[in-house]
């Protein structure tokens, strides 16, 4: 495992994983902005991650793209790379790196639970596991997302004169909320903030069931009564949200577990829907991976490092620049 440093850089062959600054060769785990950046020479990722990068940054956001299927091996010198589903968002991948019989897995962001909007997480056994820890505290035990989405549907039924604005990250979470609504037989048109349009179109094109959606336009206020509107969290506090009739502000996020957080952000209807693993899933993955060496990236790493050490696993935190806690998608 000495071949990779704490910035996820393999000096030997000049390859970075999810680098923040433009680099020669970058393996990208998924399309969120804190992982996928503009301006690399060579991007290696799943086809869908590459598509998403092009939608967000333009076709020329890298000089060269190499799409990989899940499970397809790609070699640079004596390093073999394979991508496996991470279950985080559409196109998200874990990276398995094999060198001289040593197996190292970088999970990227991942969740173990079921999700119809992407390929589900696949456990990969390894010697060294570099895991995320966004929700690395035992207070995070995500409930069934179906129950959470039912809270929204119930509230829409009861509060007929209000509209519900759901804060959700533009890539991944927004479409997951839409898909969950469809799974629960909510068949009305879902209204979306303009910034979500291209990504929603892409998900539809990829045959993800997000149903009928329409960009919010300057219609009469009363038109949006009883409707569900999905918007990026930043728009909730913006003037944008004031055009709607008696909005009930909702947020779909794992952070909504903590009431005080929801209150601070002015969220009236918190929906605990997360695209990251919760505490038990993190522990379970660590255990089942059989890795003896656990490195922990962004999030609440202290508690997880403590836990691993108690299990006699070698463990330390990696502090990756540009990813401070609590600002990640």
């Amino acid at each position, binding site marked *: 495992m000495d071949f990779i440093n704490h910035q996820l850089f393999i000096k030997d062959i000049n390859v970075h994983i999810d680098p923040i600054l433009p680099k020669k060769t970058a393996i990208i785990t998924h399309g969120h902005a804190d992982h996928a950046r503009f301006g690399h020479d060579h991007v290696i990722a799943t086809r869908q991650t590459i598509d998403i990068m092009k939608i967000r940054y333009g076709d020329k956001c890298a000089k060269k793209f190499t799409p990989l299927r899940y499970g397809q091996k790609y070699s640079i010198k004596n390093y073999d790379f394979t991508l496996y589903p991470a279950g985080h968002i559409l196109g998200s991948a874990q990276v398995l790196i094999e060198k001289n019989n040593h197996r190292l897995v970088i999970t990227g962001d991942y969740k173990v639970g079921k999700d119809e909007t992407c390929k589900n997480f696949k456990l990969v056994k390894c010697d060294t596991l570099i895991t995320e820890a966004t929700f690395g*505290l*035992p*207070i*995070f*035990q995500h409930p069934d997302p179906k129950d959470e989405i039912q809270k929204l549907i119930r509230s829409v039924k009861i509060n007929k004169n209000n509209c519900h604005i759901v804060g959700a990250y533009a890539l991944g979470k927004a479409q997951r909320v839409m898909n969950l609504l469809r799974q629960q037989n909510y068949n009305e048109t879902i209204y979306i903030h303009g910034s979500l349009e291209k990504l929603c179109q892409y998900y539809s094109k990829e045959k993800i069931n997000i149903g009928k959606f329409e960009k919010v336009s300057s219609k009469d206020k009363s038109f949006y009564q009883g409707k569900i509107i999905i918007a990026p969290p930043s728009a909730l506090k913006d003037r944008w949200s004031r055009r709607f009739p008696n909005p009930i502000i909702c947020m779909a996020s794992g952070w909504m*577990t*903590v*009431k*005080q*957080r*929801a*209150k*601070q952000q*002015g*969220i*009236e*209807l*918190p929906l605990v829907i997360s695209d990251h693993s919760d505490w038990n899933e993190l522990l379970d993955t660590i255990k089942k991976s059989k890795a003896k060496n656990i490195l922990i990236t962004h999030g*609440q790493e*202290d*508690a997880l490092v*403590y*836990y691993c050490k*108690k299990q006699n696993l070698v463990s330390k935190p990696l502090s990756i620049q540009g990813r*401070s*806690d*609590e600002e990640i998608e």
Partner: protein
Amino acid sequence: MKKFSSLLHNLILTPSRNTKIKLLQDYFKTLDINRAYALAILSDQLSFQFIKASKLRELVYEQVDQHLFDYSYDYVGDLAETISLIWPTNKEGKSQNLSTLIENINKIKKSEINTEFSKVLSGLSNNERWTLIKICTGGLRIGVSERLVKTALADLYNKSVNEIEEIWHGLEFPYENLFQWLRNETSKPKIDFKKLFHPMMLANPIDEEKDFKRLNASEFQAEFKWDGIRVQLMVSSKSVSLYSRTGDNISSAFPEIVENTKGDAVIDGELLVGRNFKPSGFNDLQQRLNRKKVSKDLQEKFPVFIRAYDILFYKGKDLRKLFLYERRKYLEKFQKENKTNQIDLSLIIKFKTWKELTKYKNNVHDDLNEGVMIKLKNSEYLPGRKKGYWYKWKKNPKLVDAILMYAQRGHGKRSSYYSDFTFGVWKENELVPIGKAYSGYTDKELLVLDKFIRNNTTNKFGPVREVKKEIILEVAFDDVFPSSRHKSGVAMRFPRIHRIRWDKPTNEVLSIEEFKKEFKIG
């Protein structure tokens, strides 16, 4: 319990006052015993004798690793929420009524608390567990004041909230007489006012710019504002009792008052420590506070007296509808009739203009008063913090520049933010902490400080972060005393962050010797 816990959940997340009132009213409409429990809980009158915060910690440590709990508590910043989330079993048992649950908990024997109460917690959903723990620890902090609860009740039954307020302290669980009267089934509950703590009249801070233009100085009287604790003294031929501002009976802590006062009246005043009616400062008073029993020795060393400034009842007569200047005559009469070493009168300051009053307010020679009170001469004695009658005008605070040293996450509405700051001054080439503050800054300043701390942490001690010594805080404080408990040898009273001094280099901050000299500490 489900219904009550979702009421609390909705109350904490609803920003709108009207929605809160509606939520409360919907709950109070239920006609069973649960609403009496709800009323007791919402007005912070229900608690369990054996189950307090420390017991809850003990129970949670039996369930989860202590370090993991501490990491989590540091992150969440709320004990009830941390325990409810981290509690390992999430099997929802049969949902019980709020009343049944509370009655069952009250039946638990002290010797079986640990196992039995843990069982109760395991049988609840997350949200119910959160609610129950909030009840145990008291002080719900869900953005609902006692006043709002009373308002919701009053509006629901077309009564005035002041009517409820008047009889409130004479009511007892399960409030049958209250609810019957609200539903117009009986007349207003008869309360024995003589035995009752009367809610105090409170002052608002004065807005120097607006208020002095608006208010006519000749209509007001001024008194010095003393740094003691506010008390209500109830004296009759049968008994003497002393109440704190919140209505707690604190008589037993001040036996010399109880033994030496005579007459028949209810007096409002400030409790101070000192000899011959010369107050000796809050530091001395603190020696006498929070004690159930007090030794002769302490009474000798730190004698107390009451500086009276108002009178509510005189010989059974309710004076609260009289004006302040009329009540004052009764107060003077009472004092003349019942001379004692335990009561003197608050001096009325003569002044003609607000400008003239300024010099009394800032009165630098006497460090023991903290400003002046300004009271409308024609003010009735009105409970609560009504606007337009009584004002407090505090001295300008003392200021010192100090260097930010450590930070810790806050609690309640500031949870997750690094909002508790420890700051220090130089001692030779090192810094020595002189105080800790968690208020005073603007929301914007808090964000800046929070970000600085996250990006400039040099060391972590559990939840405490040590930061680069770069930020200078201008700290305002009411007073500073010598203290043997602190490394710096000083203890500040009510320090708060006044502003961030971006303009000042750290080497211009005082040394501890200079600090002590400036604020006259031996």
